[in-house]
């Protein structure tokens, strides 16, 4: 499991958790295949190239948040302000466009807004290390959403469909492959390399396993946290761009609940909220499992409440499974 540096920083025995994770990811692959078999049985149109890409487009714009969220959870942190960051970035983009700014510049404003939002989170957490990230990002979640609501109120800022190339970001495709899918694959590969093939990635695991030890080993823990939170903000802005391209207009109440969807995808992917455990590919498979499951259930018109229960159940299983140890259970009857 050692990275390029040849060292293994994980405190658990490498062999045992490597094995567990290997099997965990294969379980995910099996679930993924099952979901696809189910979908194919439901809809005859599903197993076609356009059908599959149509299915991915219906959830992929949120998946951009999952990439940095994996890093945050590996560090043992959490960020629940991402949904609000998406809304605020999208609102600033649409407002600046409607104020006469060219679309390209508006996109830069969007990226900048997201990055600044993430940087504020990161700064607060890095400066005041005793503050719990859950509370800090809960506060900024409210603040960012509040600013978006002050700016737009109940109204929508629309007209983005007038810029054809902007709409095409979501609706356009290269052959059968949507542009968004290509962007996602590139970013996911880069993120995977960052987490598993660089020293930076090893630091993330080190911080997640034991922050104090990491600090004493000479890792600039707070700087790395600040960088990761800032990066999360940028990815939120990317989600905001695709979401706005999809709808052609924005309002302050978009992207509500995205934080929980992103966190559930990461957790289903086998990355522990306690930090230091799990591998990035698991999160990617989990994105597609939840996304395709929702799409399939939607195809047979399962009511959205039932859908939430099914996905919640899947999540409970996901967090329960790795903890399940029959030997312990049998030994200590008090657990039963």
């Amino acid at each position: 499991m050692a990275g390029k540096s040849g060292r293994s920083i994980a405190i658990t025995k490498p062999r045992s958790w490597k094995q567990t994770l290997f099997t965990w990811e294969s379980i995910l692959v099996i679930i993924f295949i099952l979901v696809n078999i189910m979908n194919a049985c439901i809809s005859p149109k599903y197993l076609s190239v356009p059908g599959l890409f149509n299915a991915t487009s219906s959830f992929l714009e949120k998946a951009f948040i999952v990439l940095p969220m994996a890093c945050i959870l590996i560090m043992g942190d959490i960020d629940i302000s991402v949904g609000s960051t998406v809304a605020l970035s999208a609102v600033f983009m649409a407002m600046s466009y409607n104020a006469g700014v060219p679309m390209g510049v508006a996109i830069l404003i969007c990226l900048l807004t997201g990055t600044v939002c993430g940087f504020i989170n990161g700064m607060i957490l890095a400066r005041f290390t005793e503050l719990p990230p859950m509370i800090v990002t809960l506060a900024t979640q409210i603040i960012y959403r509040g600013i978006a609501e002050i700016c737009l109120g109940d109204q929508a800022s629309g007209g983005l469909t007038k810029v054809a190339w902007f709409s095409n970001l979501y609706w356009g495709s290269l052959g059968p492959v949507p542009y968004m899918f290509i962007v996602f694959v590139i970013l996911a590969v880069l993120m995977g390399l960052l987490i598993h093939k660089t020293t930076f990635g090893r630091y993330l695991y080190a911080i997640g396993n034991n922050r104090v030890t990491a600090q004493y080993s000479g890792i600039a823990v707070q700087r790395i946290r600040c960088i990761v939170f800032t990066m999360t903000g940028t990815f939120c802005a990317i989600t905001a761009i695709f979401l706005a391209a999809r709808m052609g207009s924005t309002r302050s109440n978009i992207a509500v609940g995205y934080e929980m969807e992103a966190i559930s995808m990461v957790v289903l992917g086998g990355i522990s909220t306690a930090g230091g455990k799990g591998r990035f590919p698991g999160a990617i498979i989990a994105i597609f499992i939840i996304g395709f499951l929702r799409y399939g259930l939607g195809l047979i018109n399962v009511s959205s409440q039932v859908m939430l229960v099914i996905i919640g159940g899947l999540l409970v299983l996901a967090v329960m499974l790795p903890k399940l140890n029959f030997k312990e259970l049998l030994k200590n009857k008090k657990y039963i």
Partner: protein
Amino acid sequence: MKKRGISLFLCTAMVTALLAGCSSGNQNTQATAAAAAGNAASTAAAGNDGVYAMISKAAGNPYNERQAMGFQEVCEKLGVKYVIKHPESASAEAQITMVNELVAQGVNSMAVAGNDYDALQPALSAAERAGIKVCSFDSSVNPDSRMVFVNQAGNNEIGETLMDAILDISGGEGQWAILSATSQATNQNAWIEAMKKAMEDPKYARLELVEIAYGDDEYQKSVDQTQALLQNYPELKVICAPTTVGIMAAAKVLQDEGSACKLTGLGLPSEMADYIGTDKSCPYMYLWNPIDVGRLTAYVSVALVDGSITGAVGETFTAGDMGNYEIVAASDGGTEVIVGPPFKFDSANIDEWKSVY
């Protein structure tokens, strides 16, 4: 090692069972639905293999659910297959996902109660390109993304009806106020504008609109706003609340304080039953029947699919026992069908309606 292997195997089995369970369960419901539709079709002897879809604003909205009931009723009567989807939250994103799912299913028509006026356009245009007939009901989407809008009542009609009620209740003169929802709500503002336009008529000259208060469709805020109105304008004769939350809050305040100020507006009979009557806080109020909105939406969908209408101004069609309807121009540049005039609820008919919706 072995134990771990067994535990993993068991877990996989559990997940498989979960997935299998939900998929088979759904197939069952689908099968029964299809069977039911099949029976209906055979009894109606007017088989039509189209699928008619409806997307409401959000799950758990009683008003939307009544509309869905009406839609369902007509589809069952006509013996056609239908799909009714309620998004988990009142957001345009959730509706877009549902639109995509319906396109993938290849439905024939789609009726949407838009959560956003513009945001559904790209998705609905894609649906139209796929040959699906799109209409909106309850809350419209922009004219480019719909063929026709099923409007519960014309704005001007609502404005005039409410002004006449205020004139009648106030006795022809005096101060009155509006308790609205939010300052940005499209329908509220359209109705307030319509009321102001109606007020230009000289017969309302002795009525004085003193304030438009906003209760944000929150019960407590609406209560506070009502109390503030009573305090600031002791001579206030009538409060008009064209929102179901506001009217209920105001009715409670006026009744509890035994105020001489009376109330009218738009409210749900089931919520307002205790306050309606000549000796109570609200002599009478108005609303349209959401079940009729759903029924007409179903007839419009069927007519769009069989080609008898295309959504152009001047076309007429027959909506079963609801009679004939004509498509008219809407104020936003598109076209609409108006369900009918607002319906009056007073002490004579409230007991009959309070159990309906």
